[in-house]
Every structure is written in C-alpha cells, then in structure tokens.
C-alpha cells in the first residue's frame, strides 16, 4: 500500500464515506494533473508544471502517500528553479506511483463495500 489509509481517516475525522469520496476525486485529479504536468514538461512551461504538481501536493500529504509526495516535492523544486532537466524522469516515476495509488484506492474501496 503506497498510502496511509489511517492518516486519511484521521484527516476526515473518521468519516469513511468522506474518505471514499476523496479517493475518487483523487483518481480523477491524478489523471488530469499528470496530463497537465506532462504537457508542461514537454512545452518547458515551469509555471504550469508547478501548478499541476502543487495541486497534488496537499492531497498526497493528506493521505500519507510518502513516495509520491517526495517525487511531487522534487518536481515542484525543479519547476521553481526553472530546471526541468530531470523532470521527465521524475514525472515517469510519479506516474507509476499514482497508478499504484489508484490501484490501492480501488482495493480499499472494494474492502469498504464488502
């Protein structure tokens, strides 16, 4: 599991339905912001990259997704420094992390409904 479900539950003050809703929102945000970030890197647009990654940062921290959060922080640092040298590599790794997180969400939601 690439995130801390208990941490998410703490953030929602123990509200499991809210946690479930937030996971579903995140799934959509992962896809949208990854697309935005990849386009930004391809176009060398640091501002757009920062915006896309910044959008993910607080949610990733909220759910305790440490590896993805660290990648997001590193990408945000790159965007801030206008140095996109390693951005595509980091973005590839972030994509894998977010895909794994999405799979984790599906698993958790499956457990919640059974």
């Amino acid at each position, binding site marked *: 599991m690439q995130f*801390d479900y208990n*941490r998410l539950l*703490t*953030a*929602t*003050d123990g*509200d499991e339905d*809210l946690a479930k*809703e*937030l996971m579903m*929102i*995140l799934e959509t*945000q992962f896809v949208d912001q990854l697309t935005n970030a*990849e386009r930004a*890197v*391809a*176009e*060398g*647009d640091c501002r757009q990259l920062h*915006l896309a990654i*910044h*959008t993910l*940062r*607080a*949610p990733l*921290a*909220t759910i*305790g*997704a*440490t590896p993805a*959060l*660290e990648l997001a*922080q*590193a990408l945000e*640092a*790159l965007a*801030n*420094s*206008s*140095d*996109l*040298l*390693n*951005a*595509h*590599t*980091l973005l*590839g790794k972030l994509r894998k992390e977010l895909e794994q997180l999405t799979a984790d969400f599906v698993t958790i939601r499956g457990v919640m409904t059974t």
Partner: protein
Amino acid sequence: MRDLGQGLDNSDHVIRRADGTQVPVLKSARSVTIKGHEKLLETFVDISAHKQLEAALEARTRELEGAKTSLERNAAYLSQVIERLKQAQDDADRANRAKSDFLAKMSHEIRTPMNAIIGMTDLVLSTELSQQQREYLLIVLQSGENLLDVINDILDFSKIEAGKIKIENVEFSLIEVLRAVENLFGMRVKEKGLILETHIDPCVPERVMSDPTRLRQILVNLIGNSVKFTEEGRITLRVELEGNEQTLLHLSVSDTGIGIPPDAQSRIFDSFAQADDTTSRRYGGTGLGTTISRQLIELMEGTISVHSPANTSKVGGPGTTFDIVLPVTISQRKPFVSQKQAVDESQAGQSSVEDVGIQPNREPSSHFDGIGLGKKLLLVEDNKFNAILAVALFRKLGFEVVTATNGQLAVEAYKSDTFDLVFMDVFMPVKDGFLATEEIRDFERSAGRHTPIIAMTALASDADRQRCLDAGMDDYVSKPIRKDELTDCIIKYVASDSVIQ
C-alpha cells in the same frame, strides 16, 4: 617760496641724457612763488625701473592671456573627448545590454523547443522500441539535456550581465533550502553511486534573512559541479556560522572528484573557463556555473574561494572544496538542531510526510464541534479535494459554508452576503487569494466592517506568510488541512461564548 597749488603738468616724457641715451621720466611742473615772484618749478623723475616693470607686467599678462586661451581650447577639446567617450560608453553599454537581451531571448526561445524535444524523446522511450532505436534516442535525450544545461547557464549569465538580477533580503528557513537542494540531487547522486551528505553546525540558526532563491542557485551550481566531476566517493555540504558577530554564514561544498590543478584555480571563476580543454571535452558544459555563482555571491556581498590539494585523497580524486562566506541577518536565535533532528528522524525511516506539516493526531477536538453554529463561513478553494475535505470539517464544527472556486467569485460572494469568517486559498486561477483579499479589504473600508480572513496555504516560508498578512489576511493555516489546526485558528476568531468546552 610759496606753493601756489597749481600743478601745471604731470606727464611721461623721454629725455635724452648727455651721453645720448634716452631715459623715461615723469615730468611735473608746478607754479610756485619765490620771494614774491611767481616761478615755474619743473621736476623730472627717472621712471625707467617702473617702465621696465610695466613692460614685464604687460608681457606676463599677454602670456597669461595666451595660456588662458590655450587652456580654454584644451578644456573645450577635453569636453568633446569626454562627450565622445561617454557616447562610446553609452553605445557599448547599449550594445552589451542588447547582446545580453539577445542571449536571454534566444536562450528562452531555444529552451522551449528543447524541452519539447527532451519530453517527447522521453515519451517515445517509454514505448516499445528496438535496442538500436532505444540507443539512438538515449543519445538524443542526453544531448538535449546537455544542451539545455548550456542554455540555462547562458540565460543566467546574460541576466546577471544585463543587471536584471535583483538580490532579495527576506526571512526564510535555511533547512528548507538545503533540503530542496538535496532533493534535487538525490536521484543523480544515487545513480552515480555517490554519497551526498549535509553537516549543519548546531549554532546555525533555523531562520535567516538573505536571498533564498540565489542561495539555492549557488548551491545547485556548486553541488552540480561536484556531482559532475566526481566518479567515486562523496559530496559534503557543511554549514557553519563564522565570526564573533555570528552573522557570516559559511557554506562549503567539498567532493572527492577530479580536483582542479593549482594553476587553473585562479581562472576557474572566469567566464567560459574550465580547468583545461580536456575537462571541457570530457565533461562538457559552458564553464559558466562557477562564474554565475561568484557573481551572485558578490551581488550578495559575500565571497567565494576554491581549494584543491595537489595530492590524491584515499577515495576518488584529490577533490575540490568551494568555500562561501555570506553575510546574513539572523532573524531567530533558535538553533538549527531541532530542525536537524526532524530531518535525521525522517531520514531514519520516519514518514517524511511529517515534514510538510502533518503531525500525529492530537487529542480529539470533537468537544469543539458546534463552535460555528449560527455562523456563516466563506471557503475559497479551487482544489476539489481540499474544498470537499474543508467543507466537511467546517460543517462538522457547525458552520454554514459557502464556497467559491477562485478569488473573483469570492469577492462577488463577499459583497453579496455577510460572513463571520473567510478561509482563503492563495494560488487560484482567475484571481489569487492575495488580490481577492485586497479587494475585500477595499470593499470593507467603504462598508465599515472587518471580517477575519485566514489564508490556507502550503507556502512554508515566513516571507510567504508575511505576504498573506501584507495583503490584509489576519492569519494562516497550513495545508494539508487538519481539523485540529483549523479548530485552533477558528477559536481565535469566533466569539468566545460560542466555544463549547
């Protein structure tokens, strides 16, 4: 003899002596009465010396007038020369600015397609390819990245040359800058099998005032060089305070790399200079990194020096150490050690999520549920995840919540309703939280009220937070959103009689 008081003559003459020589004289003739007879008394005074003096004076005057005319001519000529030099200087400055502007613009124009080339190459590399195609594309990728490095250096150098770099003096967290640098190199260092370590003296304060962006850029340049020129061993960043006044920050970046020969150390800070041609051929780069670093450090009124021993160390090469001394203002005497421990703990396996603000859950804050009953709260947040979480928590506290997804909508909502509290995100599309707050405060001045506005921000530095306060916000809470922090903040701004203990 009686002087009749009548001067009849008083004039210069030239008389001839018996020997034939001529003598200039002053002739005076007066009418006098001698024994009752009126007589004419004539006197002749030799004024040869006077005349000689007069002639010399006239000659000197003419000479001086000649000199004066000559000086005036020279002054006019010099003025023309100065004017021409000034013009030439202005032309040179203009040309230099034009050159720097051109380089900056061209670098920027090249960067954008280069990023596309690199990004797309990377995307193609993630598809199914033959071994040969993959090898070719990896060469394209590596060359593109090298070219981008060169362009970035030229862009920075041009900006400095054009005087477009402004040095800030703001309060910031030193550890955050150091960690950002570490994060940046984490992967590259790992790939090369190197160790990057940071040693921070416990006396180093947690927060200082200087320019965090430039400090970061300098460290990135120097550590980047160390990574580039080190094949084996480690790169060490040390941070200490120097001097009795403890206002000089001493940073040193040392490595176990190839080192710099003694004869090359003096020119390592020159533009486009590397240790030697072999270095350029083997490692590439513009040789601008250290130049840019030195220029930035000098703009920050600091110094940089380089040391590289001639003998070889046990590991790797002789290594290089760059020493930087920067004047900083210490804004908090709180030592670094507490932050350092936090980093050490996170590196020792603790969740680094704690570093961005999440702390273990404190005692339940459910006894504050209902604190917002009968109160209306405006939540301004564009991120759906954050908005839904915050709305749920605010409602749990009893608030009626109205939401806006950008600053413009927030201002409109604020003008058409009455709120007890506003929670405002900072970065939003259309209109950001700073502008929206300023407009709300302008509106309030005419309406004669003041509603607490709390920033919800992931911005970490005090300078960022100060910017929130400067925009007219009353307070701030950090993201990610935590119920206990929200509650603590709300208690400060809602009426105390509504707090249900």
